[in-house]
């Protein structure tokens, strides 16, 4: 019995098979975010170079964030051939506890947007990459400077300041904020996801 679906190939070199189609969705609020167009252009160009079929929508409202994600999921599920990877970049103003602001100033929860792809049948077992370029609060990290080091290390060499949240490995055995009942047998909704935030929780993204 394999309640979690097929096991990955054994061995440290096991890789995801990316021979199928790749799709990217870039949602960017540029209004009130000077210079955001540079990110849109750079990321769009990279996605195309890496073989992603790329959909770009600028200045989505909060509602449109959700609709675009739903549309993206439908397109993937309706894709004729196999899909092997999806990348979603959400770029906007944001706030603590996963808040993302649409061009209309209304909020959406990041988790709700992410879950849209967790239920995408075409992406089952495939890597799903999420990039979040948004503030996660108003804290500005001054970093931990040489003063935090023992005197002899300061005397030997004064290293540059390090972000106070750096160098932390946090391993969870369950998915945070989700039901502890676990995924439905035969699927693994929370697996195969890579989420990268531009800032730590509560902090400003520069």
């Amino acid at each position, binding site marked *: 019995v394999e309640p979690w679906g097929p096991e990955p190939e054994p061995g440290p070199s096991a890789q995801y098979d*990316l021979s199928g189609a790749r799709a990217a969705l870039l949602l960017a609020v540029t209004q009130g975010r000077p210079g955001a167009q540079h990110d849109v252009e750079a990321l769009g160009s990279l996605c195309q170079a890496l073989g992603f079929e790329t959909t770009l929508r600028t200045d989505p409202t909060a509602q449109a964030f959700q609709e675009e994600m739903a549309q993206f999921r439908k397109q993937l599920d309706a894709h004729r051939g196999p899909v092997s990877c999806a990348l979603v970049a959400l770029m906007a103003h944001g706030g603590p506890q996963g808040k993302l602001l649409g061009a209309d100033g209304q909020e959406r929860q990041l988790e709700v947007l992410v879950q849209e792809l967790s239920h995408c049948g075409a992406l089952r077992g495939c890597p799903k990459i999420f990039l979040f*370029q948004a503030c996660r609060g108003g804290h500005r990290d001054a970093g931990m400077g040489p003063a935090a080091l023992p005197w002899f290390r300061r005397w030997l060499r004064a290293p540059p300041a390090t972000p106070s949240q750096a160098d932390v490995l946090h391993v969870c055995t369950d998915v945070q904020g989700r039901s502890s009942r676990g995924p439905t047998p035969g699927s693994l909704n929370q697996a195969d*996801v*890579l989420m990268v935030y531009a800032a730590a929780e509560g902090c*400003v993204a520069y």
Partner: protein
Amino acid sequence: RDEKGSDFIQTLVEVLRADPKADLLELMTEVNRQVCELDVLGPDCDERRKACLEIHSSLRRRLCLQ
């Protein structure tokens, strides 16, 4: 961001373009290293500040985009 885009996205694009065959999780660690080295001056802020990425992964295999 005003002049050349955000530190995160611009560094990510640079790192992935430089080595697209590498494991994406390792590349993100490198992106974080570079972002952490930057000193930034945010809006309404005269003092230098630091930023740090947060990476959540439930990947089960290596992910190499090329």
